[in-house]
């Protein structure tokens, strides 16, 4: 224990004596690890976020396809599906996309009656209120990113073109909480009548049907029954949705990580160079140490401690920086690559979801190879013949 501590103190002094190289290497490692860890942190947080969203999603979503294209679903299909064994309830949903020229982007329009799961918490304003108590006014709740882009506040008017291109004036009653941005960034939530007008959906038809099951594990059986009862339908279960999310976010995170891997590889090479390239002063130092009674094991251990301190220090710094970058600064620059799926990028307030085990494995992914990379040159350094150094010196 005392020997280890004494060698650690010596190794720290040795790093201090070669401060410029040590700091450059640690910072380089911190940068590479930080960027890589940011992608992992964000992907983990996003995964936790969309899994939480999936909890509110229906067990099954039934869509209708005509000639391979999504088509409206007759509302009376609801009665047929409600009679299926295992089905707890069926809810018609009304939603769609509309292009808003002012922001050159699509927004999601949904009817509040048909999709209560699409009604997250409000940051400002009040709920829509009952549909029959509002007269001619068409109230709407809007997503935080849309509100920010158009500088919308409760009481403001918002004109959106309907399916025929005629502008419909909505009155903003509330803005959703920014924490729900991943779910509601570009959402415009309105009453059913307004949604039908905007989306051009006639009475008696809906966009899709949301099915709640008595036992979610029966989803495959009920899906098959739905497909049989409603020909030309497509049934999407929660597992398929999760897979779609994973393909989207994990694919993006994987792409970012893959782009960063060459940087990590370059750092490994740099570390190899640092730990294997014995400068004249280092050769002399090892010669002195061996001449005054340090053994091969002592020199090897000191060199390994040096490598461990630099890599562990750089990696810890990188992980801390990644945490701050991802969760305090909101990952500027990287969030676009990971979050964006429309013109209105959400800026969700993500909560850290990386486990301690993942952190250790992430650190091990960098520290392990680097210390291994340092092992051979450390061994070579420790085997340095003092006679060779003395004569060379």
């Amino acid at each position, binding site marked *: 224990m*005392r*020997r280890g*501590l*004494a*060698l650690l*103190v*010596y190794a720290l*002094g040795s790093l*201090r*004596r070669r401060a410029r190289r040590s700091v450059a290497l640690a910072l380089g490692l911190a940068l590479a690890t930080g960027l890589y860890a940011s992608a992992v942190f964000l992907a983990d947080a996003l995964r936790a976020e969309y899994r939480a969203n999936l909890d509110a999603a229906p067990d099954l979503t039934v869509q209708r396809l005509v000639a391979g294209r999504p088509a409206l679903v007759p509302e009376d299909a609801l009665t047929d599906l409600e009679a299926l064994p295992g089905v707890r309830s069926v809810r018609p949903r009304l939603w769609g996309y509309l292009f808003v020229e002012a922001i050159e982007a699509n927004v999601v329009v949904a009817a509040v009656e048909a999709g209560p799961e699409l009604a997250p918490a409000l940051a400002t304003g009040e709920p829509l209120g009952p549909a029959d108590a509002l007269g001619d006014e068409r109230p709407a709740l809007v997503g935080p990113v849309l509100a920010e882009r158009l500088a919308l506040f409760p009481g403001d008017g918002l004109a959106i073109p309907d399916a025929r291109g005629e502008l419909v004036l909505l009155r903003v009653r509330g803005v959703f909480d920014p924490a729900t941005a991943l779910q509601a960034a570009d959402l415009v939530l309105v009453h059913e009548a307004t949604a039908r007008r905007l989306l051009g959906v006639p009475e008696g038809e809906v966009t899709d049907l949301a099915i709640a099951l008595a036992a979610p594990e029966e989803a495959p059986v009920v899906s098959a029954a739905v497909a049989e009862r409603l020909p030309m339908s497509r049934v999407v279960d929660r597992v398929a949705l999760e897979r779609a999310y994973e393909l989207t976010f994990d694919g993006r995170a994987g792409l970012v990580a893959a782009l960063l891997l060459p940087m990590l590889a370059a750092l490994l090479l740099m570390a190899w160079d640092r730990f294997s390239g014995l400068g004249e*002063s280092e050769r*002399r*130092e090892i*010669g*002195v*140490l*061996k*001449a*005054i*009674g*340090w*053994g*091969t*094991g*002592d020199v090897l251990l000191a060199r390994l401690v040096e490598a461990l301190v630099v890599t562990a220090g750089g990696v810890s710094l990188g992980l801390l920086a990644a945490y701050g970058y991802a969760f305090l600064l909101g990952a500027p620059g990287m969030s676009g690559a990971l979050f964006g799926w429309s013109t209105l990028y959400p800026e969700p307030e993500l909560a850290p979801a990386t486990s301690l085990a993942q952190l250790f494995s992430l650190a091990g992914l960098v520290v392990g190879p680097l210390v291994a990379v340092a092992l051979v040159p450390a061994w070579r350094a420790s085997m340095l*013949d*003092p*006679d060779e*150094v*003395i*004569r060379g*010196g």
Partner: protein
Amino acid sequence: MADEALGCTDLVKRYRDGDQRIAAVDGVNFSMPPGQLWALEGPSGSGKTTLLLALGGLLAPTSGDVRVAGRSTVGLRDHHRTRWRRAKVGFVFQELQLVRGMTLLENVLLPRVPEGGATGEERDRALALLERFGVAEKAGTQVERLSGGERQRGALARAMLHAPPVLLLDEPTAHVDAENAARIVGLLEELKGGGPAILVTTHDPRLAEHAAVDRRLVMRDGKLASAAL
């Protein structure tokens, strides 16, 4: 071999140089009692430093035996020989003196690191040695700011930290001025009175011909050519 601090029998060290074999040390024998100062002279390339390294256990001899403080070191395993050397031998080299970037005191205490660092007693002893060698006021100074003489005395203090029975010095007066050379010779004279056997390689007549030197060995072509006073 009674009353022997340092000795060797038929010591040989050969190197390969292409197809040739060169005997840097070729059948050297001597037995050195404690409390003596011997000078090892000879032209460059005669094998002085190789002999010194082999005696100190830093170089494995091709054949023959080396004894330090009554024990043969040739057959020892590497880590045993290292520990033995750390306990029984003090080294001072002409070029490889002190570690740059460290203070003089840190350098003197450096041999103690593999043992877990210096104790308070060893630290006091290091300061006392620096005081004795006239460089106590430089204890906290980084070694690159010291003069050649100060560095050499610091290296001597480091070699003496564990009071070894054998002290080996390679050209200790080679790069110092006359005043510092006289000071180092005076210190060696003082040290040998304390008991260690001191073997120095030198070209410097100020050291080789000094009255404190008990015996002069001359090396030529790897052999001890003469032994005279």
